[in-house]
């Protein structure tokens, strides 16, 4: 018993302290961007624009949190984008094609995500296929399946009134009309809180860090690492299901061809937020800040009328800067 728990706390205390440092770093970067854009344009710091930024962050933020979990284990999930789409399409099939009630559609999308994560996790843990390859394969499989089950056309949710309220409605706005915060943003915050709780307070969280720090040590201490690995990928998949519901609700349709490329934005948010791609280190809060940095940057540059090609260049520079700053910090420690 003492053997199994011994490596876990040791692996955890390190990441925690450095994580806190990094969080500060990414957070000051976010504040710097907000200040700079506010000074550059009076249109930036307006309620409507802040809401637009948060709305734009919600889907990528949830996907990035999903990716954070597997990245902390030292793995990667390239299928988060197309899995999101697949779950959206599953919701579309359940609600629009089959006409079942809303809760069934919501549950179905999340279960579809978890099931796909279970498959990815099993391929990685049991068949020993490297995560990069396994999830690359899953990315394509899910992309194809989304097109197959949707009949290659968007599925609209017009017959399910209330579906678009998941992302677009505003529960807060009904209480405080001045701040119509979209529900999608609340969902993002809820997912973040739950993920942060799981990572810091549960056995699953402890093993997530332990797998990323020293998988061999965990295995030698008698833990069934395959089971925990599969569990992490399943949770990641379920969170992608939530992202699928958010994007489908926002568009009031499941767009089957969308999704590829979204994994890269999610991974970028994770990395900017200080989670190490080599595993064992990372925080949900960092990822949330990383996702916000990406949205603020995109929105701010658009408001400043910067040409699109240059927006892309700047985003690339920021990713490299953020990770370089992290390397400098670790050298200094």
């Amino acid at each position, binding site marked *: 018993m003492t053997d199994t728990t011994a490596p876990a706390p040791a692996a955890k205390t390190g990441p925690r302290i450095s994580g806190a440092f990094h969080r*500060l*770093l990414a957070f*000051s*970067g976010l504040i*710097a*961007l907000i200040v*700079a*854009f506010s000074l*550059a*344009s009076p*249109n*930036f710091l*307006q309620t*409507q*624009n802040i809401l*637009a930024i948060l*709305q*734009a962050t919600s*889907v990528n933020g949830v996907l990035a949190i999903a990716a954070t979990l597997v990245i902390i284990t030292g793995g990667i999930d390239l299928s988060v984008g197309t899995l999101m789409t697949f779950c959206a399409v599953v919701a579309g099939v359940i609600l629009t094609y089959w006409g079942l009630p809303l809760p069934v559609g919501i549950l179905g999308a999340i279960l579809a995500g978890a099931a796909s994560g279970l498959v990815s996790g099993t391929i990685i843990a049991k068949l020993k296929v490297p995560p990069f390859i396994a999830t690359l394969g899953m990315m394509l499989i899910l992309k194809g399946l989304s097109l197959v089950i949707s009949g290659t056309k*968007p599925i*609209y949710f017009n017959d399910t009134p209330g579906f678009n309220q998941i992302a*677009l409605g505003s529960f807060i706005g009904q209480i405080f009309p001045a701040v119509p915060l979209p529900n999608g943003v609340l969902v993002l915050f809820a997912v973040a809180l739950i993920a942060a709780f799981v990572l810091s307070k549960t056995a699953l969280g402890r093993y997530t860090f332990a797998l990323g720090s020293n998988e061999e040590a965990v295995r030698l201490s008698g833990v069934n690492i395959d089971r925990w690995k599969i569990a992490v990928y399943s949770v990641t998949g379920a969170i992608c299901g939530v992202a699928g519901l958010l*994007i489908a609700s*926002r*568009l*009031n*349709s499941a*767009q089957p*061809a*969308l*999704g590829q*490329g979204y994994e890269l934005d999610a991974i970028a948010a994770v990395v900017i937020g200080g989670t190490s791609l080599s595993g064992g280190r990372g925080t949900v809060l960092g990822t949330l800040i990383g996702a916000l940095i990406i*949205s603020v940057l*995109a*929105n*701010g*540059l*658009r*408001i*400043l*009328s*910067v*040409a*699109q090609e*240059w927006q892309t260049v*700047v985003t690339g*520079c*920021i990713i490299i*800067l*953020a990770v370089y*700053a992290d390397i*400098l*910090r670790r050298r*200094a420690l």
Partner: protein
Amino acid sequence: MLTRRTLLGAISAVAMLAAASGPTFAQENYDIAIISKGFQHQFWQAVKAGADQAAEEFGVTVTFEGPETETQVDRQLDMLAAALSRQPDAIGLAALDSQAATPQLQQAQSANIPIIAFDSGVDSDIPVTTVTTDNVAAAALAADKMAELIGDEGKVAVVAHDQTSRTGIDRVDGFVNRIKEAHPNIEVVSVQYGGGDQLQSTEITKSILLANPDLKGIFGANEGSAIGVVNGKTELGSNIVVIGFDSGAAQKGFIESGAMAGAITQNPVGIGYETVKAAIGALKGETLPAIIDSGFNYYDKSNMADPEIAAVLYD
């Protein structure tokens, strides 16, 4: 110290950009945000070139953005939301999904920002006008060229992409009606639909040719149909006149080799130009027609290399 480093980095990046876009802010002029369906493809770059040309000519500021692929509906909405926050004077929009854009369209309407729809347009009554290709007139031009090439008499056929889409309906009607009205000695013996699929259009073409050995020409109503028609013609060793639609490397190659007589091209540069022009018109309070034709051209081997034609062709 490290925090300061990131801060400095971030600020200098922003400062650099602010400096780069500085001059456009200095002018007191109309600010027009164009949100397109794409950005990287040659077609959209040609639309952008037209918009830039109009911006320079009329002294207005134009920004042009579009998602990486035509499936990224949510990314287009984020672009539209950021454009609205910028409070431009007008917005040009080619919606990927009109329904999904409804909240932003309403927001624009309540902020009195006129929306100019372009390309396939926006399925809503909020846009003040739509800049698009007049497909009926474009297909009628194809009919006239066909008549000219076959000596204004004989049998012809049409291979189109589908009978449900707006472009499919308009191009078939435009061609068939023009032949009936202006070329009484020509008979359209067959109109077939191949879904724009090259292989299916090839098979259709072969069956039309086998059923009508005296056929003189076929009009392929979109890129895939036209390529299929040429393939079918080549497989049977026929010498009929083929007129295609749009461009692309394959069609351009067929025109160069003589397998295709020529094709109709839409004018993406014109779409961009007319969109900006219509936005200025709307801001000046002019009454705009519901549809603004962005123009089209017939091109063949002789004029393919002309700068104005070459500019609207893509690979």
